[in-house]
């Protein structure tokens, strides 16, 4: 068995999970202009509720839906109950990062307080593995890739061809102009938080499915590489995040052939390189433009 093709198989799975996470993250940022550090912990919450649903016998498909719904509900709640009031008060974007950090700490420790610090694992994460073109994948890893691909396709169709998608892109590009053109930006923003929250929840569930075991910190740990992928593809750009997810997911798994411990370091080196070459990330729009557009 070739190590290289094996790594490509794992890279596909990692990229798929990462794509769900990074696209959700970047979508949230694009519409709200907030770096949401609580994102990783929402992934954890979603995985825990999905786990709860799964172990009460709903089956994994319904559990995934439960996870996605949890992500959407928690995200919308955070946005309307915490972020929006702070923004209405005129809290600077700069301080909003502190707000989201505080939320992250609260959510993460609330999970620990409720669920305890033990490790859990989905029974589905073990399974007979399939051999495909030199890759070894479990059936559920194939499911993960399928779910991610379907979600990306749906999102693409939504953004391109529906009125909501158009309104969403308009709001991300220039909220003031969007509002004065008659778009109910508040509702669009809520929709964006719901969609990105659902992606975040799916990302959490698929990540937990792919891991041998997970505890209350795993989402937060994964946030690092989610941010790396989102930043790589220019934050706020869903297609950029997809590219970033594939590049970083593949690179980290390929690097694991030589040094398994340094997967994250590879993600970081790629991030540092892209920042040195293109401070605004891969996608063409610069952050200053995003910033000015948000005023």
């Amino acid at each position, binding site marked *: 068995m070739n190590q290289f093709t094996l790594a490509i198989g794992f890279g596909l799975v990692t990229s798929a999970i990462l794509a769900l996470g990074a696209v959700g993250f970047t979508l949230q940022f694009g519409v709200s202009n907030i*770096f949401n550090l609580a994102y990783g912990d929402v992934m954890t919450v979603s995985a825990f509720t999905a786990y709860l649903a799964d172990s009460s016998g709903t089956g994994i498909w319904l559990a995934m839906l439960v996870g996605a719904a949890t992500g959407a509900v928690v995200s919308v709640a955070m946005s309307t109950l915490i972020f929006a009031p702070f923004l209405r008060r005129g809290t600077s974007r700069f301080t909003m990062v502190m707000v989201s950090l*505080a*939320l992250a700490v609260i959510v993460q*420790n609330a999970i620990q307080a409720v669920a305890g610090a033990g490790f859990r694992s989905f029974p589905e994460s073990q399974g007979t593995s399939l051999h495909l073109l030199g890759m070894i994948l479990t059936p559920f890893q194939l499911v993960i890739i399928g779910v991610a691909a379907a979600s990306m396709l749906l999102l693409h169709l939504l953004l391109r061809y529906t009125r909501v998608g158009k309104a969403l892109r308009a709001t991300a590009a220039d909220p003031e102009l969007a509002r004065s053109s008659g778009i109910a930006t508040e509702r669009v923003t809520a929709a964006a938080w719901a969609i990105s929250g659902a992606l975040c929840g799916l990302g959490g569930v698929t990540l937990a499915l792919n891991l041998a075991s997970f505890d209350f910190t795993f989402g937060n740990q994964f946030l690092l590489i989610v941010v790396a992928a989102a930043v790589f593809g220019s934050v706020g750009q869903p297609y950029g995040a997809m590219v970033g997810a594939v590049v970083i997911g593949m690179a980290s798994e390929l690097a694991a052939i030589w040094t398994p411990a340094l997967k994250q370091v590879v993600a970081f080196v790629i991030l540092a390189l892209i*920042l040195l070459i293109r401070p605004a990330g891969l996608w063409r729009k610069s952050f200053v433009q*995003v*910033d000015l557009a948000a005023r």
Partner: protein
Amino acid sequence: MSSAYQYYLLTLLVFFGVNTIACWSLNLQYGVGGVMNFAFIMFQSFGAYLGGVLTLGPSTGASFQQYILGANLPFPLPWLLAALGGGALAWAVGSFALRPARRDFQAMVMLVVSIIASTLVLTEASWFNGQNGIAVVPKPFESRLGLGEVQYGWFYVGMTAIAVLGVYWLVHRVTSSPWGRRLRAMREHPQALASLGVNVRAESMKVYVLGGALASLSGAILVQFIGAWSPGSWSTGETFLYFVAVIVGGAGNNFGAMLGAALVLGVFEESLRYLPSFGYAGLAESIQFMLLGVLILGFLWFRPAGLVPERRRRLARRGAADSGNPLPTGAGQQAAGS
């Protein structure tokens, strides 16, 4: 007072001194300059490591600890070199982390750096002795003075106090200087400052390096007192504690930062020791962190300026033509001149 209580008290005092220096450092970066250093703990940790190994002597490789950069230097050098090293590390990190124009974006990159750094330290055991860290760091002058543990402790409190005074002198000079004014302008409106011809990235870099050096110094002071360093106790979450301290105390105000160090890192942390233990292991700690999260949300909502808000500064003084210009012109002229 019994010696145990004395020792407890003097430990608290050293910690307070260390935390004060650390909060001033973060206050310079975040409170004054607006640079969100989410890798803050990395600099303190790095300084602590340097302070430790520069007194331990070269690694023999055969003993229970393996590390790099070992040397056997006399007292003030480990502190100074730790500060220098922290500055150098800040320069290295800043060279790419400060490139994005948005502050929150920079913060993300620093967060990534900080987490990666702790992963590297834990996995590459041959560099910093991995998870175990370093121990039995000799204390400065301890063998020469021949004092008892408590007396030596008070001596160390004195050394810490001198360092705190020195750092205060420095940060006070910086925050009340024209450069400090330029930094505050940068915090308030980087684009406006850039339009006046100031190189915002270079200014951010300067305050980042200075803050990094001070954070490292605080780490070095701490490690020579407790005598041990391990990466586990310098995890990324600790950065959050320092931010809470600075925001609660009052970002932009040196006394506020000191008050935050005393209240959040001193009183709040210590008072938990006296609570009866309840629930399973880790429950009390997670509730503590939830409280800290609620505390910071509360402060950002009800009192965003902190307990001791930043002083309102009078910008235009009559008769002092070169030092009292209104901010924008002054900042612009200095930038053009320098």
